[in-house]
């Protein structure tokens, strides 16, 4: 799993495991200081969905959004496991390494 995909999963988890695109983008920007593009966020979400790591449900449309509905994403147990695996793999690699 790529770094950015991890960011997206963690952003959802940090927002109470239910977040829509704008919140995810904001969360990443606030914590990493990177101004990421919506294109990147949604592309990552689509990949994560294909891998079975996230699922989504539609909210109510609102006027502020030009009548468009929010798409709320939730990290599935497989996604959480993948996050843990990635971290464990990284920790293993870091162990004893001086950089």
């Amino acid at each position, binding site marked *: 799993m790529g770094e950015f995909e991890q960011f997206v999963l963690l952003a959802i988890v940090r927002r109470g495991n239910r977040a*829509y695109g704008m919140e995810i983008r904001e969360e990443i920007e606030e914590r990493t200081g990177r101004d990421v593009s919506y294109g990147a966020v949604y*592309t990552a979400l*689509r990949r994560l969905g294909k891998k079975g790591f996230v699922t989504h449900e539609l909210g109510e449309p609102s006027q502020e*959004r030009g009548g468009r509905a929010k798409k709320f994403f939730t990290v599935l147990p497989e996604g959480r496991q993948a996050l843990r695996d990635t971290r464990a793999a990284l920790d293993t690699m870091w162990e004893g390494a001086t950089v």
Partner: protein
Amino acid sequence: MIRPGRVWAWLLGRFLAPEDRDAMLGDALEELQRRAARDGVRRARAWYRGQAIRSLGPTMHARFDSSFDPPPSFNRRGEGWGMWRNDLKLAARGLRRRPGFSLTIVATLAVGVGFTTALFGVYSAVFLEPLDLPDSEEIVVVMGVGPFGCCGPASGPDYLDFVERERSFDGMAALNPTFFNLTGLDQAERVYGTRTTGSAFDLLEVPPLLGRPILETDQDGARVAVLSHGLWLRLFEGRDDAIGDVLDIDGEPHEVVGVMPAGFDIPSPWGTLREHELFTPFPNELFERSRGSHGYPVIARLSDGVSVDVAETDMQRIARELEAEYPETNTDWGALVQTAHEYRYGESGSQFRTLLAAAALVLLIGCANVAGLLLARAAGREGELAVRTAIGASRRALARLLFAESVVLSAIAALGGVGVAYLAVGGLRSLLPPTVPRVDQIAVDGQVLVFAVAISVGTALLFGIVPALFASRTDVAARVRENGYSTLAPGRERLRDAFIVLQISVGLVLLNAAAVLVGSYANVRGQEHGFSTEGVLTMALSANGPEYGDRASVLRFYEDVIAEIEAVPGIRDVGFVTKLPLAGGSNGSIQRADEPPRTNQNDGPLVEVSSAHGDYFAAMGISLVRGRLLEPADSTPGAVGVLINERMAESVWPGEDPIGQQFGFESEPPWLTVVGVVGTVRQWGLEQEALNEAYFPYARGWSGSGHIVVSTEVDPATVSAEVRAAVGRVDPTQPPASLQTMAERVDRALAQRRFYTALIGIFAALALGLATAGIYGTVTYFVGRRVRELGIRMALGAGGSGIVGLVLRRGIRLAVWGVGFGLVGVVASTRVIESLVYGVGAAEVVTVLVGALALSAAAIGASVLPAARAARVSPVIALRSE
């Protein structure tokens, strides 16, 4: 609610999977509202644009990735660039196999790209480059806007008031550009330069290369001079000991105190095409001249944070104050502030932008042409594409392959285009009219190359992407079933039609522009200018120096020169005038003697003033209409006789006999008496209306330097050396300059218009040729491909005329659409070309009609010929045709 630009919203969602698009656009819109409330609308919109652009990369990549999912049997050679590289190789190989097709496309595009690039090169060097001065965007010119329009220089007293009252500038300077006679050298020389206040050098912030600049203390009558780099090299061969040396300027010794570095010049709003070579102090006594006598251009440097508009408002305020204080001289005088760059290059720059637009239209026609060809070729390759799809290539992959072809083509075309641009820039440099500044700086440089690459990429997108997307939309089953027989899918046919309509309409716009300009050129060239151009030689001459301190001695000098030249064999008439036709002039308002005195000096008709002597009117070929020419008695003080032109006779004394009428430039006697009426000449240029004009006898009129005018019985070129020598025999320290025939002067006045007209004409011819060939080629190809369908129709009982009619209707429909859009374009373009139009409307109905017919004929003819051929063929053969 704050809305993003429609284009940006479209772009943001363009490549995202459709099921995510709504949610993402909603998110971005929501965030836009929040940011607008927090950071302001402008910054929020800028953020949105940034999002749209940065989202392109990931979303486009994802689209390629997710849909390019071939089965294992299809050779997937790699990701990203790797795939592209293979497609590019494949495309290059394919194009090599069809050299005729490839060459046509490359040549079409190279010409379009090359011309557009070359014109951009000229435009960028001549008009975009800033002036060669520190922080040059802060340098402005301050001009007066008088009751008769823009733009006049300032008067001395006005300038002093400007300096005292302004709140916008870090310095102002007054100039007095003029020709100086340099004597005491091997050969006397006339150089262009300017008297300048010391402040000019301070505000331009360029230190001298040697010595010191002109200082304010020099304005008290110091005889010092600062040389331009060029003059220093010419006179002193670049020696340091020039400083302290003495030059005879207008007969007075001047000490050389400084030399300016190469490339330096004071950006005077006058004589913008001449370089100042010599700078001398602006004498304070000039400030004491009349407030009504406007003679000194003013430049200034904007203070930090002051915009041109603010400075102009400030100067307007002062103008209003002066108007209230000095109503007799300053009523209706306003002020104009413009950057020196805009003042110098603004107008010709905008004309040049029209040319650039015309070149871009040719390129657009080229693109439509090429897109039509590519589409036709793609139609011919449907079998191949179907097979590729059948073995697993996705639509994206096919589109990429087809697009790769346009990338290869446009890359080669870009190289060709740069080559064409190099040649064209060389050609343009020699063709450019002498009125265009900075011609020596025109080159194909880095910026121009970037431009060439950018328009090539744009071109590839324009002509490549649409046909690629359409052609890749192949219905495999249908194609395979048909075994390669094909008719056109409706969408693609509409696209082909759109290209044809585009070519017809853009072609019409260019054709109209060319026709209007050719008409204007003919008008300017053919109009009556009121003087003779055959066998008339002119030269500038002044009498400067201590021995010419009074008007009598100056007049004696001119009379001697006239007599000396008259003795040269082959000479017919010789005269002197202070202002040549077409060269601009000086003017003032007059008071008729028989009308009540005016309250304001600016009231009354505006009249141009010249002084003439000798046989000027005969030499210049200006006819005497009524009364008599000037005689010595007309110079009698208090009883001065003058000549006026026909226009003035008609406008000031309509229906009356002008002879014997009296008027004056002052509001009181002594009056001037009209003794004769002469033909009207265009004083301010071929394209400026002729104005009222009065000619004084030189002894009583406005004095100063002027021009000797000589009419010859032989070719003027053969006597010019003798004429020059004759002047030298009278006084070798007063060299004549600017020896030119009137024919040359007229030619020069026409040069710019001729250049623009020729260029637009070339573009229109190119456009017409490209469009006709493109339309004919594309239509013929597609109708040819319908032969099988037409055969079936005939087998089912359709008659030959029915078949032709079917195709003809389609051709006519295209022509009608194309002409319709073209007419809209013509109307839209009139505003742009209006500035270049002279004496004709901005739309030429006849030409537009002829052009419309020609282009329609191409579209219709191209449809009918193959259809007629098809109608003659037996259905059996037609059915076998593929």
